[in-house]
């Protein structure tokens, strides 16, 4: 058979090192993301343990700052982004009816950059003077003053950015060129759409981050003064360029989760997605708006009033397409024959927590109010509601939704529900009280606090331990599903629609060797 040699692939370590197969690379991304989530999670426990009571308890304040910085970098660049790239690698070729990604060798390279970049980032903590301690936003002058650990981090960010750019080029090239005949863009599954838009965002902003990080490196080592006021530079320039990357980055983290919700909710409501077209336009509008709102992260630096008004109104405008999305998800569920298997729990839970995060985002968008909230725990609560409550919930929804397809085995639904509820409750106990702490004025990124903040902080710490512990259940459920269990059917879920469900579970090594036709 002509295709027989395609099915041969190395076994053992070389299979994973040399692989150009989208499923193997997807698995690598997901495993990597999980390991990073554990490391980042442990760092969050160091932070929360120190904050169990006022005063300095466990760690040196400088180390606390390093933990806050590296926890964020690992969770953003090591967990959430690779997690979604893993889902994209597994699903996009199967969803659009392609045999593999458009650029399989580059796909391998995109992944294998990551472990080296992550090693550099984690090694920075062991360098003389410790790791980066300026916060993940790496604001000068702190980031200019940091030790060699900061250089490790900056190099790591360059590598992570390269990996993302290569991955995005691959995703765009795949979606634009390899769709099955008949699958027009407006027939494409929403997950592929949200990833297409996310990939464009990545390509537009990752080079900007690389540009500004390069300027920081030249400031540190080659005598330039881009961000140094003493040499005629301006530290605020960093904030502008960083947030030109940073705000779209937030949407990079959350749009693929919206894609997952848009796949999962129709399946378990047993109804087609309400307002498909408006979902696509809303995603594109969110992406466009994300480029013109960056300075809402820096109202307090002293901008002209016109600037503050512009960024306030443009930020509030994002509520419109976001509202369209939430409306569409709810309308999809309206009068549907709903069941609540784990993917649906994560999706509905994600829409719920995201809505809370979105509303606190609107509060932060209001310039005069932000002068009070800025750099407080209110901001910490807000972005964890968005990044954890929407992005990470989206990753879990996606993994539970597709794992029977990937492994050919059903997972343990009972334990998976325990995982959801313990995480949901742990998450709420951790982050909801942080709104109150922030409104009362507790600053973030500080290892010590005033006595009156103790009780809410203790709630937060208990919740954090509960949330991290609940992930052990996830690990167990997934390992069990990989090793065996009840056979999954091709369609897996009664209400599932799309090309990936026409393939066997698990799918063959090359997804579609015969091109499917889409009506």
């Amino acid at each position, binding site marked *: 058979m002509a295709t027989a040699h395609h099915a041969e692939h190395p076994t053992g370590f070389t299979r994973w090192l040399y692989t150009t197969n989208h499923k193997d690379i997807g698995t690598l991304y997901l495993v990597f993301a999980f390991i990073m989530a554990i490391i980042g999670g442990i760092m969050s426990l160091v932070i929360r343990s120190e904050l169990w009571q006022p005063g300095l308890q466990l760690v040196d304040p400088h180390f606390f700052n390093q933990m806050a910085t590296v926890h964020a970098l690992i969770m953003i660049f090591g967990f959430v982004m690779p997690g979604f790239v893993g889902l994209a690698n597994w699903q996009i070729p199967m969803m659009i009816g392609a045999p593999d990604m458009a*650029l399989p060798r580059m796909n391998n390279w995109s992944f294998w950059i990551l472990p080296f970049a992550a090693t550099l980032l984690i090694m920075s903590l062991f360098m003389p003077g410790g790791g980066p301690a300026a916060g993940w936003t790496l604001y000068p002058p702190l980031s200019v003053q940091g030790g060699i650990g900061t250089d490790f981090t900056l190099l790591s960010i360059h590598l992570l950015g390269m990996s993302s750019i290569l991955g995005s080029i691959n995703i765009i090239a795949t979606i634009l060129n390899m769709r099955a005949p008949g699958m027009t863009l407006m027939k494409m599954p929403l997950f592929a759409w949200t990833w297409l838009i996310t990939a464009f965002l990545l390509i537009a902003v990752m080079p*900007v981050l690389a540009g500004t990080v390069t300027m920081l490196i030249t400031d540190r080592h080659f005598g330039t003064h881009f961000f140094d006021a003493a040499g005629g530079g301006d530290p605020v320039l960093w904030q502008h360029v960083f947030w030109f990357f940073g705000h779209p980055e937030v949407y990079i983290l959350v749009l693929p989760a919206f894609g997952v919700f848009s796949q999962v909710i129709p399946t378990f409501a047993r109804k087609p997605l309400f307002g498909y077209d408006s979902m696509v336009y809303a995603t594109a509008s969110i992406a466009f708006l994300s480029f013109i709102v960056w300075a809402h992260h820096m109202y307090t630096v002293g901008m002209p009033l016109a600037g503050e008004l512009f960024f306030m109104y443009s930020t509030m405008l994002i509520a419109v397409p976001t509202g369209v999305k939430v409306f569409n998800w709810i309308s999809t569920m309206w009068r549907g024959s709903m069941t609540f298997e784990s993917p649906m729990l994560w999706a509905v839970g994600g829409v719920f927590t995201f809505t809370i995060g979105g509303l606190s985002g609107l509060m932060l968008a209001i310039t005069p109010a932000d002068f009070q909230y800025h750099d407080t725990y209110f901001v910490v609560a807000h972005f964890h509601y968005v990044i954890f409550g929407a992005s990470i919930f989206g990753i879990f929804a996606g993994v539970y939704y597709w794992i029977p397809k990937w492994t050919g085995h059903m997972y343990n639904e009972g334990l998976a529900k325990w995982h959801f509820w313990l995480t949901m409750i742990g998450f709420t106990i951790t982050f909801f009280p942080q709104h109150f702490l922030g409104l009362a004025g507790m600053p973030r990124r500080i290892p010590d606090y005033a006595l009156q903040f103790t009780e809410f902080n203790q709630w937060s710490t208990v919740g954090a331990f509960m949330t991290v512990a609940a992930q052990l259940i996830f690990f167990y459920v997934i390992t069990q599903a990989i090793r065996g269990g009840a056979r999954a059917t091709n369609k897996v879920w009664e209400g599932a629609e799309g090309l990936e469900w026409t393939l066997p579970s698990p799918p063959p090594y090359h997804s579609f060797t015969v091109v499917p036709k889409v009506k």
Partner: protein
Amino acid sequence: MTDITQKTRQQSGIQRTVMALALLVTVMFVSAAFLGFGA
């Protein structure tokens, strides 16, 4: 099986997409750097 013409078309489409995206990456990187020099 995909016929040869379709495959060739797909290949050149992929090449064009990659070239265009690489150009976009370069433009964004250079503009960020020039912003630094201009400021």
